[in-house]
């Protein structure tokens, strides 16, 4: 019988020296081709004696298998070394910049409107809107501010005609009237929007934003107003403790009226909301005046409640440390990109108001 070990070692020696696919093919033919070494060995099986045949075949098959494995391994080695060779030539400078892309920003006013809406949504307020151009009636008279009343001096008004009955709303409060007139109590709404006053300096802009709040139901008292605004201020400024002061004031459309101050201090040149011994006015509020309810066709014997108005731009300035109100509306791309928010930063309760 053939010396299979010897044959195997001969073959392996031959393969060992194969370094390219051409000689690989050639050697493979020498072994497995029509006249190949192993092919020839297989041909011999038929002529063998029955007693030898089994052992011969078994040894031959094992030889074939071993050789095949070596060939396969050789192929993998070829692939690997070809890839390795390729990789050597495929180095790029990954510190080079990539292709152009653009990231837009959301304006701080829009962001704060969404933040505030998210907060009030949690406690059952829904959003209402009203027109920017208003009648004198909705903006003043219906809100218990009759013509020739000095309280009108607090609002420098833009007019659209000389009879002064069409104007740009000076506050979001007319939305209270519109909402109550078109629906039935209870009402629990907020109304963010643009407001206008004929005033322009460092701290005043002829256009700014307000958020109106209105909650009318059968038993809503000033305690609810206080609780609601505490909740809001704490949530909005995202602070644990917050110092708030309700200070008596006067608005024709609420009674009692209050202005709300929050405590703050200046720390390392930055404003810190919620602590300290300085006070900052942030909003006006009060119990809706019975005359307003009457004008809005709500029975003030049965229903009562509170309203508030807060400056959105001012909230944005305080929370995000913005100094100049006028810069909000100047479309300076440097400012917008600096103070703007990523469009994916959608304020929500579950994901948090701000990052």
């Amino acid at each position, binding site marked *: 019988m053939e010396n299979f070990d010897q044959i195997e070692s001969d073959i392996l020696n031959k393969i060992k020296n194969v370094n390219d696919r051409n000689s690989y093919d050639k050697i493979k033919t020498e072994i497995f081709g029509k006249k190949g070494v192993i092919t020839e060995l297989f041909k011999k099986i038929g002529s063998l004696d029955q007693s030898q045949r089994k052992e011969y075949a078994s040894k031959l098959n094992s030889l074939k298998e071993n050789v095949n494995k070596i060939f396969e391994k050789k192929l993998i080695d070829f692939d690997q070394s070809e890839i390795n060779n390729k990789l050597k030539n495929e180095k790029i400078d990954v510190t*080079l910049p990539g292709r*152009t892309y653009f*990231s*837009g*920003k*959301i*304006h701080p006013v*829009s962001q704060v409107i*969404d933040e505030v809406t998210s907060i009030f*949504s*949690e*406690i*059952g307020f*829904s*959003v209402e809107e009203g*027109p*920017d*151009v208003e*009648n004198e009636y*909705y903006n003043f008279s219906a809100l218990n501010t009759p013509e*020739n*009343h*000095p*309280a009108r001096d*607090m609002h420098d008004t*833009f*007019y*659209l005609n000389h009879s002064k009955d069409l104007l740009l709303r000076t506050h979001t409060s007319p939305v209270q009237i519109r909402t109550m007139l078109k629906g039935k109590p209870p009402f*629990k709404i907020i109304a963010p929007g*643009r407001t*206008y006053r*004929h005033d*322009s300096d460092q701290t005043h802009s*002829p256009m700014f934003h307000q958020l109106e709040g209105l909650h009318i139901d059968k*038993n809503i*008292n*000033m*305690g*609810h107003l*206080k*609780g609601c605004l*505490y*909740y809001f201020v704490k949530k909005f400024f995202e602070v644990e403790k917050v110092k708030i002061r309700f*200070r*008596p004031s*006067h608005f024709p459309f609420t*009674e*009692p*009226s*209050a202005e709300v101050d929050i405590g703050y201090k200046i720390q390392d040149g930055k404003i810190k909301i919620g602590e300290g011994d300085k006070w900052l006015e942030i909003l006006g509020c009060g119990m809706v005046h*019975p005359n307003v309810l009457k004008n809005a066709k709500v029975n003030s014997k049965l229903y*009562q409640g509170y309203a508030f108005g807060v400056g959105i731009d001012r909230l944005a300035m305080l929370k995000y440390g913005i100094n100049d109100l006028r810069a*909000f*509306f*100047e*479309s300076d791309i440097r400012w*917008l*990109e600096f103070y703007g928010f990523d*469009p*994916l930063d959608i304020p929500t309760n579950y994901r948090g108001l701000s990052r």
Partner: protein
Amino acid sequence: MITSLSWLKNHLTTKANLNEVAEKLTEIGLEVENIKSSNNNLDNFIVCKIVKTQKHPNADKLKLCDVDVGSGNLIKVVCGAQNARDGLFAVYAPPGAVIPKTNMKLKVAKIRGIESYGMLCSGYELDTTSDKEGIIELNKKEKNIGEKYFKNSGEKTMDISITPNRPDCLGIRGIARDLSASGLGQLKKQPPIKISQKFKNPIKVSIKNEKDQGCGIFGSVYIKNVQNKESPEWLKKRIISLGLKPISAIVDATNYVMFDLNRPLHAYDADKIDQEIIVRNSKKGESFEALDNKKYTLHNNMCAISDKSGVLGLGGIIGGTRSGTEMSTKNILLESAYFFPSPIRKTSKILNIDTDAKYRFERGIDPDSIKLGLDLGMCMILDMCGGEASKFSIVGKIKDKRKTIDLEPEKFLKVIGFSITNLEIKKILTSLGCSLRVSGKKIKVLPPTWRPDLKEDIDLIEELTRIKGYDKVPSISPEKENVKDTLNYRQKLFHFAQRSAASKGYTEAVTWSFTDSKTDTLFSELKNEIKLSNPISSDLDVLRSSLYSNLIIGAKKNIHRNFEDLMLFEIGPVFKGSKPGEQSTMIGAIKTGKYSRKNWIEKERNFDVFDMKNDAFRILNEIGIDSSKIAVSNNTKKWYHPGRSGLLTLGSPNGPELGYFGEIHPSIIKKLDLRTDNVLGFEIFLDNIPQSRKKIREAKPQFIVSDYQKVVRDFAFIIDEKYSSGEIINLVKKIDKELIKEVKIFDVYQGENISSGKKSIAFNVTLEPKDKTLEEKDIEEVSKKIISTVQDKTGATLRS
């Protein structure tokens, strides 16, 4: 309203210090805005001595004065007054001082070539006399040099912001009363006045009985043989502490009473009154010169205080120079009157006059204070100037409009959230001047005459809460219950659209709702622009009818700062008319400049129309409009480049307008001096986005996919250039809507090898069989149909 602690103490017994008083005032709604040490501006004026005068070398009428202001060095001042002379004591204003009359801030200035460090003041400039001739001559001594001319007491003052409902607190006594109600002290009684008034007021007063008569009561007293003079130091200091200037004892006394009791008075030089006082409605065209040295021409029906010769002054607003008191005045008529708020306000608005008296009358003066005012004013004048007073003459009468208010203590609890005892109610309201009577469950309350704001029970409830303290109101935590969706469909759409635009790389701008009419008209189809009657400036004179106006004005500022590659958008209202609701919500977006600049990896290229089209489509997709429903045509507006812009409509080219996109018209870019030639934009009409009746999950068909291989075939045609790609795509799609899944243009070419007026267009068609694998002959069949259809309908030829 300005006050000091010592003045308050005239009316209030209290041990509280200034800070405690200030804190309490703020707590009860009289907000102390600041506490100041003294009036800084008037501090600047200093007593000086002119040491030497010489003629100005370049001007005959000017003098060069060496002035001793007590600083050690002599100061050079150029002065034009004739009476400037060696040794004269005068009033010096240094550079930086603000001249009261003109409100001008002094600067070191060259006058005819010589620098003048400040000025020597005339009485006119200091607004203390109307004397324009010459500078003030002071009767002072060497030791006075360097002293403040307007001596203040050095006491701190509080500036209190008084809300329009509280006219009573425009007098110190009203503030003291509130403090006493709050428990911070005891209100003092007004000392009784005992003056012998023997003779009858010789000047007859009548209030004409006319419609719209602005005067209700006119009280007066005639004081004869007075000797007008400078006020004593204590009074001057009080007047200065208010930020006013002392003028004379008579005028200072009237001002004092106004601020002390909120009781405006007016003093006439009685000898200048022609026979009698007639309070009547003015006639159009009548005029008079007022104490502010301005001449006012009156309209009909203004409340004129007049005599036989004409108008003396406007009642409750301002007196006239004709009957004004002077140092030489001998006999005066002191007026204490009641004028109705509304006509006061109307008149002062029309004539644009604002005075301390007007401010008080329009808010409502105590109609019962006529005699109180005459008493105190008369007393002070007699004290300071001597003389003899007549009996009071009080003409006219007004109805007491006060009503008894029924207050139910229960209601306090219901509105405020905590309870209050009847005893507390009584204590607080009484200390505020109300009279109370308990009647069953109700308390009947009559408010005092000085509180026109107390009209119904809610007003009293506010008083009680305010004095009890807002900190007593409990805080009730809000319920976390949602009855209604927070946002409605339109509001959600707004929110989506806003974030969608920003996520395409645009930065959100928020710009004013008004804009420059000259710019807006370029982007508007309105027949009439929406003008503001009183714009803040001439370049913000109309309500915007397009979002482009302000975006492009904003872009221009950025481009001029060398930020030329911009992507800006705004979402918000544009206006179509001047009535409420004539507005719509839009997105406007612009891109300027280049997509990419000199860059190692990409070719430099401008932003182009297809950038805008893509963005507009993606936003519309994201807010719920399927691309297949958007029709594109080129019927655009005048502000777009006519050949490079498109209209997006819903369903068909005649459907509702969804938006526009394209290049801004080159002539607009040029006109606006944008310093770039590449400005593009899109507009989306959010109000035209229809609300789907179904939720997305309901509107989706069943999920069905084909198990059979899809096949893609390419076609190329030479076709007349008038045919748009959209038309060809639609044409091919229609051939077999079931089988043809997609038609995609991959090449469009005009130029060499293509005859003019024609273009080459290449597209591939994706076939997706539903029920069997396509065989070569099926594909061949569809291909033939595509070729023949395109050829037949457009005259195109297959490109070989």
